[in-house]
């Protein structure tokens, strides 16, 4: 089936540094999402993105977070500066329509902030 690829699978950085998480969505998909999962807890919606713009973001999407998809390449989540509480698994997803029924997820990037 369709694949969403996330690079890297693990990342360890020091608090205060910048980190960029990369997502290669399904090729013909138009909507892109990031979810955050703290260990043992539920996956929580961060943001979705369409036509070069953020459509919707949750209160978890702090000012230190930003997303972009320059020139149709990777969909990225940048955190600058990072904080200890940003340690989590970040899942990217994409869909053809704005619908919960058509989401495809990547395998996640485990971010550890020391």
């Amino acid at each position, binding site marked *: 089936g369709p*694949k*969403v690829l996330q690079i890297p*699978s693990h990342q360890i950085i020091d608090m205060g540094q910048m980190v960029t998480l990369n997502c290669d969505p399904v090729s013909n998909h138009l909507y892109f999402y990031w*979810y955050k999962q703290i260990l*043992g*807890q*539920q*996956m*929580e*919606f961060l943001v979705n993105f369409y036509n070069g713009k953020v459509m*919707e973001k949750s209160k978890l999407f702090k000012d230190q977070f930003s997303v972009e998809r320059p020139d149709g390449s990777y969909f990225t989540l940048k955190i600058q500066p990072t904080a200890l509480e940003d340690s989590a698994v970040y*899942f990217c997803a994409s869909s053809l329509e*704005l*619908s*919960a*029924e058509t*989401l*495809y*997820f*990547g*395998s*996640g990037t485990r971010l550890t902030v020391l």
Partner: protein
Amino acid sequence: QQQVRQSPQSLTVWEGETAILNCSYEDSTFDYFPWYRLFPGESPALLIAIRPVSNKKEDGRFTIFFNKREKKLSLHITDSQPGDSATYFCAASASSGSWQLIFGSGTQLTVMP
């Protein structure tokens, strides 16, 4: 306040038994309930989903039972296999208003051979 709750947090069954995973929700506007399965290191994958027009949805060994009045649903996995060992997430969304998919915290299922 968690909008989607799952229980138990972890469940162990023997091969061949039926595993029952429970889910409840708060928001009565939710009208789509998917279950996702997550194997370690892989992507959450849609397993089966139901809409409230039905109180049961079956796909092979996987069945969702839905109780709209009590805002509860459950996933039954019959003839459980060791390969079913994974974390199962219940989720919910509403087709009106925010489309967002709200996840429960998951049930970690272990099927012993």
